[in-house]
């Protein structure tokens, strides 16, 4: 099982096709074996086809509409936005409003900070999770099973509730209001470790590792020269999920960073609290802060979806 889900879907497609064909037989008068289900209206299986697309299109439109709104409103001016009915089509003022965002809050700094934070968290997560995943999947050591059980158990512990002592701790370390305070606590995740272990187990053949041993690789050398290249697809998926999560994280950065040294999300909350009547300004900031993850999603949507669905099967 790799990160492709296409096979499973094809199977489902085939199942769907078969179901409707069988539905046809049913109407030819095949006796029903289940007394519990005799009252199904004829042709229900066929009726699934026509309304499925309209339904899904409506769902997608509802999903996309607030995002569209985020980009449409800042392209207009505030007096147009304040009218009834509100405007529904974009205008030409987006860059003007975007410039006002940079003049109002420290948005440049916020973008750079978010990039540093999300980038570092992603790199650390990839390194630490793949190392641990490799150890749990392929190395034999005393206490492996127990340690792995602990890793899985930690996924259910709501560590966010330790937020007050965590803040005290960061002050003791002298890290409060430094980006490291945001990076360090999420530099590795249990989900990532389990995800990487699963992938390593399936994608890296033992023979390859033994061959590497023969060539005189140390254990770290095995990881670096043999395992890491084979993990690239899983790294891409985990990296994308981690980056987006780190980019969107809010509560802890809000607590530990000051408004003068914000991440994008913290800067947006400042913007929305202080200027909430200035809709074009606030939504221009929101649009700019959303743009990076939207671009990632547009380019790597398939991988992100497969990552979520793979994670679900394992979870």
């Amino acid at each position: 099982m790799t990160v492709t889900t296409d096979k499973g879907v094809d199977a489902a497609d085939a199942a769907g096709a078969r179901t409707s064909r069988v539905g046809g037989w049913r109407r030819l008068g095949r006796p029903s074996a289940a007394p519990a289900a005799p009252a199904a209206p004829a042709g229900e299986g066929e009726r699934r086809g026509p309304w499925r697309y309209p339904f899904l299109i409506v769902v997608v439109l509802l999903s996309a509409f607030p995002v569209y709104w985020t980009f449409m409103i800042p392209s207009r001016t505030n007096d147009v936005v304040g009218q009834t009915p509100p405007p529904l089509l974009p205008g030409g003022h987006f860059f003007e409003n975007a410039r006002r965002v940079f003049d109002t809050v420290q948005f440049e700094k916020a973008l750079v900070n978010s990039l540093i934070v999300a980038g570092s968290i992603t790199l650390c997560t990839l390194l630490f999770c793949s190392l641990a995943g490799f150890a749990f999947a392929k190395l034999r050591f005393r206490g492996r099973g127990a340690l792995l059980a602990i890793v899985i158990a930690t996924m259910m512990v709501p560590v966010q509730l330790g937020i007050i002592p965590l803040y005290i701790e960061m002050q003791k370390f002298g890290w409060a209001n430094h980006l490291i305070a945001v990076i360090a606590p999420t530099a590795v995740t249990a989900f990532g470790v389990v995800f990487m272990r699963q992938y390593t187990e399936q994608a890296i053949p033992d023979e390859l590792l033994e061959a590497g041993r023969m060539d005189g690789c140390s254990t770290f050398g095995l990881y670096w020269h043999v395992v890491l290249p084979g993990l690239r697809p899983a790294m891409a998926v985990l990296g994308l999920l981690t980056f987006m999560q780190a980019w969107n994280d809010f509560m802890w950065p809000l607590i530990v960073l000051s408004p003068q040294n914000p991440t994008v999300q913290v800067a947006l909350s400042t913007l929305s609290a202080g200027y909430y009547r200035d809709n074009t300004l606030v939504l221009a900031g929101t649009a700019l802060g959303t743009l990076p993850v939207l671009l990632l999603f547009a380019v790597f949507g398939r991988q992100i979806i497969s990552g979520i669905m793979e994670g679900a099967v394992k979870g």
Partner: protein
Amino acid sequence: MTTTAPAASGLDAPPPRPARRPSTARARARSAIRRVTGVTAPYGFVAPFFLIFFVFGLFPMAYTFWVSLTDRDLLRPHDAKMVGLRNYTDLLHDEFFWNAVKNTFELMLLCSIPQLALALILAHILNARLRGRTLFRMGVLLPNITSIVAVTIVFGQLFSRDFGLFNWLLGLVGVDNVNWQAGEWSSKFAIAMMVIWRWTGYNALIYLAAMQAIPREQFEAAAIDGAGTWRQLWHVTLPALRPTIAFTALVSLIGQIQLFTEPLLFDISPGSVSGGTDRQFQTLALFLYEEGFRLRHFGYGSAVAWLMFLMTVLLAAFAYLITRGGARIRGGSR
């Protein structure tokens, strides 16, 4: 495979690079080193996880309990006094705390149940032969990749009293402008909309993954028995998805206990952390933030955190018992 044996046997194998092996003594020394790193390396590889989890996860959580027994606050961190369980007894008499508990649980039900039910239906419809499958999946996942801050800001604007789109739409059917933030239920409805919008598609993809793991013979058998698509959902898909549903329900409920960003940013009075003028949508997480970081009552805030932790554990145990109990009843009826 073990980590040490191949390294040792590597000595007997023909030398891959002859230049590397000038004398057996040096080779033996190298293998000894390798054996040591071979034994300790796995621990080194898993150490970062345990180190980080201990320092930034487990220790702060346990320390929360200790802090909750003191009257510690941010301004005088060093002369905290032990006050025993006083923070807890105070909390149990604090009407703002109970208000937050009530709001949190009301929002939990308002958010979780529609979200999971909709996700199930959506997954059922996605689980079929579709043109543009990836596009539809990306479409339903789109809300989940936007940040909660962005979602709250946009919905806050859509729900605004004077210029909001929702009030304009309601106006078309003759309903007067609703002050969404002010009402006890209208504000919760708005917050629930944000949560449902952001998470339905994500849960639908999780259900879809689980549905694709159901053997298709089960659907075929049901279809032969005359079950249409919705009957198949009820009689085949739902029972097979039971563990997945329990899992998503648990994750969603635990997430809802910590609902924070939506009630914080939906409040339009600048700098307010009270969740509306009458605290009509202040959740426990927001109450924790107010006590701990606005009023700087570290001890009192920690007591709130610890009670939230207890609620989480109780909820998880409850969910576990329900799914297990349900499984036993089902098993018995067969």
